[in-house]
Every structure is written in structure tokens, then in C-alpha cells.
């Protein structure tokens, strides 16, 4: 990773973190009614993985956080309008913040049922293959979601047809109140790759460089027609499952411990050591992020609600 890439990832991590903090405030203040699964703690892997994509690749994100959209470059005000169910978002109030969509950048949208993403990603991979392109598909999903049958069917189908799909598991230790070790019978989800004879790799999800390198490698494999890969990024969900989660099912000690591995200060320290990030840059990046968010929130707040009877539109093309 070169300097500018590192900074780009860092900027997106900061912007994502600040945006989620702001969204949490808005929700808690009752200013927007949206339903949000925060991604705090997982921004490193999300931003780094997406940084490895080409503009014409496809993206199936998971339900956790805003970093996917931030990193892919979807305007913040659009994300906020989706959250608030206003005009000016990406889905006309139809899907809320869970269904941010952006065809220009290959952002296909989200399945409300977990695991619904796998077959869709497979289909996007199929399109690429049938048309003979060299794009790829990046599909995020959680540790809990790795237990859906669609994971198995899609991994196998991608493998037998050598479809260019990178499956990226965000193993954050929990699926709502269910710890990974009780939901998932294997220590490393990456080992499931063995059932499909495809590469499976574990990386530290809080280290952007490890994630980036693994995704680059998997994308290369995909583009060259060798088929899918599975990457497991170990990370941790620092906040509750949703904004408002009582989070009563795990110990404060456990959560505290993981705050000490918050990827943002860790990456800052690293970048500082490498001379890539100075203190003043840091404050600048933070201030820039806040200013962007302020402008986006302001935009959102001025946007009207959708026309009520537009509820009847968009069923059929």
C-alpha cells in the first residue's frame, strides 16, 4: 500500500466513524427514525477491502455500518436521506438505510434476509463471466451469516463455474447475542473454503494492510478466471447490535478489552510511525470529516419526505 492509499483508507475510516457517531446522536435524539446496525470497530477491514476494488466491480455489502458506502464514495447526504426516509437518498424512501444502492459504482443493494446476498453476488459473478469481462464481485457477510445454506450453495456454485467472487467474512465475534464459537462449529470460518477447494485465508480485520493485500490477491484470482476466494477478517463489534441494543449478553470487560484494539488509533499510530500521518493532518482529516457530515446532515434535514403515493411506484419496471 502506498502512502496515498493508506491515507485514503484512513480518511474513510475516520469519516465512517464520525458519521456513525452522528447517526447515533440523531437516532437517540429522535431526529431520524431509522434502524441502524453500527459498524464501529469494523471500519478498517471495510474501508481497506473496498479500496481494493475497481470502479467497475460489484459490491454486496453487509448490514453493519456506513463504511462500505463511505469507502465506495457514495455521497453522505444520500446515505443520510435513506436513513431518514427522505427524498434525495438512493432508494426513494423504499428501503431505508439498509438498502443503500448505487448502480454507478456497482453497489447492488442489500438483502434484508441474511445470506440473501450470496446468490445475488453469485449472479453478478455469472454476468461478468458470461459477458467475458474481468470485473469482480466483493461480497461481505458476518460470522453468523456464514451458517446460512445460501453460503454453501453459492460458494460451491461459484467454485464449479469459477465465478469471480470474493467472499469476505467479517467475523466480529457475535451475531446479536450469539457468540461465534457457539453458532459456528469451526474455529476459522476460512476453513470452510476447504469444502469447495478454494483458497481460504484468515486476516486480522483490524489491520487494513493485511485485509487489503488479501483482497487484492483474491481479486486477482477472480479476474484471471480462477474463481472465488474466501477471506475471514477477524474483528470485533464495539457497539451494540443495533443502536438501542441493551447489549446485556456480553461482559463489559470483553468489550473494554476490544476497545483497546480499536483499529482507528492503531492505524493512526502506525501511520504516524511511518511518517505518513502527522498530528496536524490528523486534526485536519477529522475536521474535514465533521464538516462534510455537518453539510450532509443539513442537506438531509432540508429534504422533504417522499410523496406518499410514490409508495405505489417501483414495483414493476
Amino acid at each position: 500500500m502506498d502512502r496515498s492509499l493508506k491515507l485514503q483508507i484512513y480518511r474513510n475510516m475516520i469519516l465512517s466513524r464520525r458519521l456513525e457517531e452522528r447517526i447515533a446522536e440523531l437516532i437517540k435524539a429522535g431526529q431520524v427514525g431509522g434502524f441502524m446496525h453500527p459498524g464501529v470497530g469494523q471500519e478498517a477491514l471495510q474501508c481497506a477491502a473496498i479500496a481494493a476494488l475497481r470502479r467497475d466491480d460489484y459490491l454486496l455489502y453487509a448490514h453493519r455500518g456506513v463504511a462500505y458506502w463511505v469507502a465506495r464514495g457514495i455521497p453522505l447526504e444520500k446515505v443520510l436521506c435513506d436513513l431518514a426516509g427522505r427524498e434525495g437518498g438512493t432508494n426513494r424512501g423504499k428501503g431505508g438505510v439498509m438498502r443503500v444502492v448505487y448502480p454507478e459504482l456497482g453497489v447492488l443493494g442489500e438483502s434484508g434476509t441474511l445470506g440473501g446476498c450470496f446468490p445475488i453476488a453469485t449472479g453478478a459473478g455469472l454476468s461478468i463471466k458470461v459477458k467475458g469481462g474481468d470485473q469482480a464481485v466483493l461480497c461481505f457477510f458476518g460470522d453468523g451469516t456464514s451458517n446460512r445454506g445460501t453460503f454453501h450453495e453459492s460458494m460451491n456454485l461459484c467454485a464449479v463455474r469459477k465465478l469471480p467472487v470474493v467472499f469476505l467474512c467479517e467475523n466480529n465475534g457475535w451475531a446479536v447475542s450469539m457468540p461465534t464459537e457457539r453458532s459456528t462449529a469451526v474455529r476459522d470460518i476460512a476453513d470452510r473454503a476447504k469444502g469447495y477447494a478454494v483458497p481460504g485465508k484468515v486476516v486480522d480485520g483490524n489491520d487494513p494492510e493485511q485485509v487489503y493485500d488479501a483482497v487484492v490477491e483474491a481479486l486477482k484470482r477472480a479476474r484471471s478466471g480462477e474463481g472465488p476466494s474466501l477471506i475471514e477478517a477477524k474483528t470485533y463489534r464495539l457497539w451494540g447490535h443495533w443502536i438501542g441494543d441493551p447489549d446485556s449478553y456480553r461482559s463489559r470487560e470483553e468489550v473494554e478489552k476490544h476497545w483497546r484494539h480499536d483499529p482507528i488509533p492503531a492505524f493512526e499510530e502506525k501511520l504516524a510511525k511511518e511518517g505518513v500521518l502527522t498530528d496536524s493532518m490528523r486534526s485536519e482529516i477529522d475536521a474535514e470529516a465533521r464538516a462534510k457530515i455537518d453539510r450532509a446532515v443539513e442537506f438531509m434535514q432540508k429534504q422533504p419526505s417522499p410523496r406518499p403515493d410514490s409508495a405505489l411506484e417501483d414495483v414493476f419496471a
Partner: protein
Amino acid sequence: MRTITYAQGIKEALVEEMRRDPTVILYGEDVANFGGIFRITSGLKEEFGENRVFDTPISENAFVGAGVGAALTGLRPVVELQFADFLFTTGDEIVLKAGMWRYGHGGAYKIPLVVRCPSGAAGVGPEHGQCPEAFFMHTPGLKIVSPSNPADAKGLLKAAIRDDNPVLYFEHKLLYAAKGEISDDPDYLVPLGKAAIAREGDALTLVAISAMVPKALAVADRLAKEGHHIEVIDPRSLCPFDRPAIVESVKKTGKIVVAEESYRTLGVGAEIGAMLMEEALEYLDRPLRRVAIPDVPIPTATVLEQFVIPNEEKIYQACRELLA
């Protein structure tokens, strides 16, 4: 008599039936350690132990299908889906296995399975907000209940757990906090297949399902003030479906409105309309009115959601039209 909430009614039913019968087990995502995302099952693991109350991986096919397998082999599983919409992820297990395993094997096995399905639009969009009862009402072999108040929530769930057939139990998310009176009888059961006349009247028959019932009762109040005494029928069970209750009422009133949170085409109102056309045509003096979702998925933004979900005003207007 005590006053409890709908959520409490569900919980009491679970606790009482689990105390009564050691073959009743309860599982689903987050039901044990967390007590369920709607907090219905808190404390149950503590009382009944991890063998009978446990959390499952996110594997709806496996755990719903396992409910069928466990029911075939002597348990009475109560399976919680986090949202009724997830029934679609497990269509084979629900429709072809729970619904048809017994029949296909010539009645060799019983399937005493309950699947709890939190239903209803609540700002959560197309895949977390449906009332999909009508899909499954078309399936032979499944019983379906949709309680509208705490007493029915409890009595129907107890009856469902004791029933030897698969029951889809639809609990409306917006009713969890609703309050109502309930008897203290530990054998308080509401029989599957028996409609409730929620309010008597003779001006019009308003059939309302689940969360539409309180709205229907409010409409009935409003119309009473205007001098129209309508009858409100709450079918409670959609299978078995208490056809005579509706037919009898319409023979008296000659007018029918159905209020439901299904999609309009082939919603429950379609069956009611067709049944009346078969059995009570000569008594009908006005057209059917269906107040339902206008055949669109459920949008997320409140203003859109409220546009498509039946509300008091829409039900009222439909009744007024027929009473004119």
C-alpha cells in the same frame, strides 16, 4: 381476571405449557441468553435449562426443519423466527415438510410444531414488516392463528402448543404492548378455528385480522356515534377458518368489509369474498370492500408505509361507503 400485555400473554403461555409438558421445547435466534429480540422469552432458559431453551445459529432451514423432525419424534417444539418474513427463507420446511409430511406418509406421524412469527409493518421495510398469513393459508396441512389481544395471544398459543398439527403463530409486533384482561385459569385455551365476535351489530360485518382489530373496534365506536351499529369479527384462526361465523353475520348484515395487513390480491379478504359469493350471495346487498395493502411491498419510510398500511380512516371510509 388480571390485566396483562400481549407480550406477557405469549410468555405466560410458553411458561405454563413448558411447566405442564416436558416435551415442549423452545428455540430460535437469541431466545435463550438474550431473551429474544422482542424480549418475550427472557428468563425461560433460566427456568427450563439450556436443554429445552436454546439459541440457534442463523440457519432457518435447519432449525425450522429440525422442528418438524423433532415433532415427528415426540417433542413439541416451539420455534421462534425473528421476523415472520423469514418464513420465505424456509419455504420448503414450512410448506412441503411441516404442511405435507404427515399426508405424504399416509398419516403415519403427527407434527405438533409451533412456529412463532412476529409480523406486521413497523418501520422496518419489505423484508421485516409483512403479515404473510395468506400465503400459508393456501397451504394444506398448516394451521394458522393471528391473535389480536392478550387473552387470545395466550389462549391460542396454549392451544397451538397442545395441538398435534403444525401451527404458524403470527404475533403482531405493534400489539406486543397492547393490554387486556385475562382469566387466571391455567387451562385457559382459545380453541383453534373459532372466530370471536369482537362487537355485535347488524348494520355491516367488518372482519378484521390481528392489528386491524383494535382499529376496527375504534371504527365501530365512531360509526355507533353516527348511528350505525356494525359487527366486528376477529377470525383469530385463519386455518381452520370459522366460515360459518362470517357467513351468519353477513346473512344478518348484508354488507362486508375486510380489513387486513395482507397484500390485497389473494389476501384473506379474497377467500372471504369468494366464500360469501358461494354461500350467501342472495344476502349481499352491497359489494365487498377489501382494506388491504395495495399489492406493493412494504416501504420503509413512515410516510410511505402509512400510505399503504390500512388504518382507521381507510377502514372507516370503506364502511361508510357501504352504509351510504
